[in-house]
């Protein structure tokens, strides 16, 4: 199989539209949220038009169909990330909820999973706020201590203190598989093996890696992996927490409500086995089915060829941006262990103003701290502009980005 970007673009209706008075849309904000192919949009419509019912509790034919579609999506997602046991896949509303689920549950756990004073949680400076704040809250509730891996000025994790940071007090190490700002791909396998040797659990924020088909939980070495549907061609409102089965069995529930129980009495309840123990109330059913369709869409492509295509875009962009005076790329300057998000600063033009000019050229990017404020502080910048590439982007769009940045420089009179 090979990869034809022109054919893929035809699957994404939104790429045909124009913006800002007739300019073709150049969508370089997929790390924020990806666009959706026709196949996913049609699946959502078809579900609501033909199969809509609540799951697991309706005894009619529609209920059976909806349940089969929902549970089928769980199996599809499980296979995509390399597990044969779909009961290890918990649906959540997004990855933020997935991480909060783990942090909250561990805060209520007893025995070996319990977190308390003297325990340490280790995260990194390059985390998204979603992988920072839940741990701060856990530390506040339990008296545990939050510790941090620093980042180097070239945007890699500083592993020189790893042996000191990960020690016998460490309960959990939580880190990004791929940075949403820098694109850096972290050495999760070696960090996980160090953490396990110290008796700690490992949670991986895979929001930016799973969309590119970069996930095999059987070889990653993590205990928890979270990702979100809307960054991988799926709908918003659906995410996944994968965890080892024995952990899900041992962990206390997160949200209480319908469907997560086994029995309910006035003085106590018992809980359903995982994954349903963690899926309280009516779930985002259509969105889960839509996520299944997104996974099917990605799986039907040659993902190695997709990644090669994205790699060429990143290479082209790194090269084109490096030629612009006053532009500083945050993170690895070479396309090695590096995903497809490129953040940068531009001397004399604030990121908001850069992105406004780009928007006027039809180029959609993100400006700000990208929910990674500690990382920006560590790199000594207040905010940045981020372009991120996905399977439907083209070399011409990379050039449009570089042209737009030069337009911004001209507009603000810095060249």
């Amino acid at each position: 199989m090979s990869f034809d970007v022109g054919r893929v673009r035809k699957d994404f209706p939104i790429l045909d539209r124009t913006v800002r008075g007739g300019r073709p849309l150049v969508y370089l904000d997929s790390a924020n949220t990806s666009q959706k192919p026709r196949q996913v949009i049609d699946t959502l419509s078809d579900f609501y038009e033909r199969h809509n019912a609540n799951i697991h509790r309706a005894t009619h034919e529609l209920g059976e169909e909806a349940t089969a579609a929902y549970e089928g999506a769980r199996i599809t997602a499980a296979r995509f990330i390399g597990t044969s046991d779909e009961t290890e896949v918990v649906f959540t509303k997004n990855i933020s909820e997935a991480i909060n689920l783990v942090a909250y549950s561990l805060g209520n756990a007893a025995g070996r999973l319990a977190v308390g004073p003297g325990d340490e949680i280790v995260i990194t400076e390059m985390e998204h706020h979603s992988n920072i704040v839940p741990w701060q809250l856990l530390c506040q509730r339990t008296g545990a201590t939050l510790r941090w891996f620093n980042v180097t000025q070239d945007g890699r994790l500083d592993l020189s203190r790893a042996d000191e940071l990960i020690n016998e007090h460490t309960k959990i190490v939580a880190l990004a598989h791929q940075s949403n700002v820098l694109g850096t791909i972290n050495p999760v396998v070696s960090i996980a093996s160090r953490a396990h040797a110290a008796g700690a659990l490992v949670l991986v924020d895979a929001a930016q890696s799973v969309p590119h088909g970069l996930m095999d939980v059987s070889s990653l070495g993590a205990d928890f992996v979270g990702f979100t549907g809307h960054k991988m061609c799926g709908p918003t409102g659906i995410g996944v927490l994968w965890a080892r089965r024995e952990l899900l069995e041992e962990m206390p529930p997160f949200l209480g409500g319908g469907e997560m129980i086994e029995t309910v009495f006035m003085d106590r309840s018992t809980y359903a086995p995982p994954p349903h123990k963690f899926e309280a109330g009516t779930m985002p059913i259509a969105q889960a089915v839509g996520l299944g369709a997104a996974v099917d869409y990605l799986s039907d492509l040659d993902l190695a060829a997709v990644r090669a295509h994205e790699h060429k875009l990143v290479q082209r962009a790194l090269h084109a941006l490096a030629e612009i005076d006053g532009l500083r790329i945050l993170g690895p300057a070479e396309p090695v262990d590096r995903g497809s998000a490129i953040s940068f600063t531009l001397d004399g033009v604030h990121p908001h103003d850069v992105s406004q000019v780009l928007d006027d050229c039809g180029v959609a990017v993100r400006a700000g701290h990208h929910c990674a404020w500690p990382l920006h502080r560590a790199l000594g910048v207040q905010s940045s502009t981020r372009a991120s590439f996905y399977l439907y982007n083209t070399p011409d769009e990379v050039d449009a980005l570089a042209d737009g940045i030069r337009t911004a420089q001209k507009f603000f009179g810095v060249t």
Partner: protein
Amino acid sequence: MQLESMYQEIILDHYRHPHHKGLREPFDAEVHHVNPTCGDEVTLRVMLKDAGNEPEIADVSYDALGCSISQASVSVLTDLVIGKPVSEAMDIEAEFLRLMRSAAEPDEDVLGDAVVFAGVAKYPARIKCALLGWMAWKDATSQAIAWRGDFGGSSPLAREQR
């Protein structure tokens, strides 16, 4: 290009050459406001002085990090409110807020140069940029007035600075 509707020449002028910039003493109140979506921040001080029936804005000084819109906006604000009675300055703020929230036809008599921000109101993502300095000023001024209402005269902070 539609950019010029937002980036009016007056805005770019204020951005390149901001008025009343820098933190000065004495002051009655100081606040620090942040735009959480982008991290832009402003530290802003207000000094009041007694003038007839009500206090007047004696000085507004600030230090700010941010985009052209937020920088220009706070610069225009200082031109408009310094030397005005507090109630008149508050009316200007209310009119600016109305312009940003409803993109209503601005009252040029009240807003002066600030009418050029009408173009910004058409870009919802940038309204917070334009309002950052104004919200900080309103907060600082309210704190300064509250102090005077409770104790009379300028704050001990301001007296000490003198």
